[in-house]
C-alpha cells in the first residue's frame, strides 16, 4: 500500500503577501516559505495510515525549482519515506502540474494519492481534480474524514450544504480540507534523519511534459481598502446607527 503525496512550496500562511512595486507580481523576496498547509494535512493523513498499519510507503513529490528540496526535506522529516523533485524553473499552472503528477503516478503506481485541496498562494483549487480526470481515478475532494478498509476507502467531504460521504475502490484521489487532521511538527532527530532519506531529482523535460503558459498575469494589486469606521459607545448607539445611518435594519 503506497501513498503519493504532492507537496507545494508556498508562502508561510502567517505572512501577508503584498504586490511588488511594479505591480507585476507578488513580492516574495524575504518571505518565509513553507509546505502548503493543505499538503501538510494530506501528508499527516498518510503518516497516520502508515502508523495504523494500513500503508507501507509514503512518497512525497514536488514540482518546481531547486528550493523545493526544503519542503521535501520537511516532508521526509515529518514521515515520508522518500521524495521526488521534478525540477523546472518555469512557473507552472495547475494543468501543467497535474500532467507532471500523472507521469510520476505512472512511474510509481501508488494505491492512493492524497493532496491538498488548494494552494494558499494561487487559490486555484484545481490540481487534484485535473489529476484525477487525467488518470481516470475516482475523485473525492474536500475530505474531512478518511477511512481505509482493505481496498476501499470511505471519505466524508465538506460541502456547502453540510457533509457528504462517498466510497471508492482504490486507487483513488483524495483532496484534503482543513478539518481532516492536525498535522504534527517534525522532531529534531527526525529532521536529522530526513537528511539521509532518498530524494530523487527528475526534470519536467525528462518526463516529457510540454509546459504551456496559457494564462498570464498582467497585474497584481492590493484590494481596495475598506475605510475604518467608527467605534460606538454602546448597544443603543449601534442600533440607532444601523437604523438611521446605514439603514440596514
Amino acid at each position, binding site marked *: 500500500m503506497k501513498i503519493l503525496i504532492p507537496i507545494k512550496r508556498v508562502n508561510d500562511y502567517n505572512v501577508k503577501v503584498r504586490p511588488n512595486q511594479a505591480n507585476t507580481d507578488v513580492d516574495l523576496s524575504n518571505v518565509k516559505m513553507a509546505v502548503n498547509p493543505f499538503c501538510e494535512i494530506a501528508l499527516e493523513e498518510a503518516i497516520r495510515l502508515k502508523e495504523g498499519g494500513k500503508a507501507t510507503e509514503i512518497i512525497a513529490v514536488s514540482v518546481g525549482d531547486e528550493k523545493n528540496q526544503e519542503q521535501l526535506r520537511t516532508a521526509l522529516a515529518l514521515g515520508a519515506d522518500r521524495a521526488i523533485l521534478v525540477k523546472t524553473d518555469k512557473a507552472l499552472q495547475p494543468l501543467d502540474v497535474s500532467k507532471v503528477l500523472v507521469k510520476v503516478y505512472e512511474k510509481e503506481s501508488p494505491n492512493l494519492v492524497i493532496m491538498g485541496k488548494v494552494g494558499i*498562494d494561487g487559490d486555484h483549487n484545481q490540481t487534484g481534480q485535473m489529476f484525477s480526470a487525467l488518470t481516470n481515478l475516482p475523485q473525492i475532494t474536500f475530505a474531512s474524514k478518511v477511512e481505509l478498509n482493505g481496498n476501499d476507502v470511505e471519505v466524508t467531504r465538506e460541502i456547502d*450544504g453540510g457533509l457528504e460521504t*462517498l466510497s471508492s475502490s482504490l486507487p483513488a484521489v483524495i483532496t484534503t480540507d482543513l478539518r481532516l487532521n492536525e498535522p504534527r511538527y517534525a522532531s529534531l532527530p527526525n529532521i536529522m534523519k530526513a537528511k539521509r532519506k532518498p530524494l530523487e531529482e527528475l526534470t519536467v523535460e525528462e518526463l516529457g511534459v510540454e509546459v504551456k503558459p496559457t494564462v498570464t498575469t498582467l497585474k497584481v494589486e492590493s484590494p481596495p481598502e475598506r475605510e475604518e469606521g467608527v467605534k460606538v459607545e454602546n448597544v443603543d448607539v449601534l442600533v440607532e446607527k444601523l437604523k438611521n445611518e446605514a439603514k440596514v435594519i
Partner: protein
Amino acid sequence: MTKILVLAEHDNNSLSGATLSVIKAAEMLGDEIDLICTTSNISNLEAEISTLSSVKKVHVFEDKIFENEIAENTVDCLIAVSDDYDYFLASSSTSGKNIMPRFAGLMDIQQISEVIEVVDGSTFKKPIYAGACIATVKTEQSRNVLTIRTTSFDKTSTDGGSAEFVKHDLPANNTNKPTFVKNELTVSDRPELTSADIVVSGGRGMQNSDNFKLLEGIATKLNAAIGASRAAVDSGFAPNDYQVGQTGKSVAPNLYVAVGISGAIQHLAGMKDSKTIVAINKDEEAPIFKVADYGLVADLFEALPELESKL
C-alpha cells in the same frame, strides 16, 4: 458568435441563487447563453429556469444518478455537449470547485478560478493569497473555463425567458468514480448563508456551542443567516457549513455582524465585501475593527442579550 455554457446548480428542487449570478457574469462575455442541467427531476426546475431572460437553450440530462452529485457524472455530460462553446462557467461553490477543474483537465484547458471581474473576453480579475492581492490575468486560450465568485456579481433578470429545453441521453463512458453513501445536510429555516441579506457570525470568543445559541435570537429578529469563523468551527461550536472565509464561504450581505471574531485575513477574505460590517469584540485591538463600519468594544455576553432586546 461567442457561445457560453453555464452549469445550473440546484438541489433537484430549486435553482441555486449562485447560478443567477453566474449567468450575470456570462452576459458580460456574450449573449448566446445556454444552460446545462443534470438532475433527477427536471420538472421541479423547469418553471424556475424558464424565468431566466437571457438563457436560450437548456441541455437536460435527467436520471436518478443525479440525485446526488458525483463530479464524474456531471463532467461526462458537460463533455457530451461541449463542442459548440467558447466559455464554460459555474460558481465557485463546492460543486463548481469539484466539477469544473475536472472538466477543464479533460478539455486541456487551464481554468481561471474565483473570477470577481470580467475586464474583457480574455481578461479577468481574481483574488490570490487569500484575497491579500488581486491578480488581473489574461488567457491565450480560445476556449475557457471560469468559476465565478458570485458575491461579486448581481443576479440576472428572472422576468421571463423562452429557453428551449433539449433532452439528452446519458453519455456512455468508462469513468471510474466513487459511489454515494450518505449525506448530513444542515436543515435550517433561516436564509441561506451566501444569499442572506444579513449574516450574524460568531468566533472563538463565543467560547462554546451553547453560547453560540446567543446568536440565534438576534438572527431570528433580523431574519439573518448564522455564520462562523474557522476557529469556531474547528472548536466544534458550529457545523462546517457555517464557515465564512478563505476556505469556507464568501458572503457579501448588506449587514455582517462579527461577534467575538478577531479578524484573521482568512476570515476577512470571505466577508470584507459586505456592505455594512459590525464588529463586537472585547479586544479593542482586534483586526476586525479595521474593516468594521461600526465597532463595539464590549463583552459579548452582555452586548448580545441587550442587542437582542433592542432590535
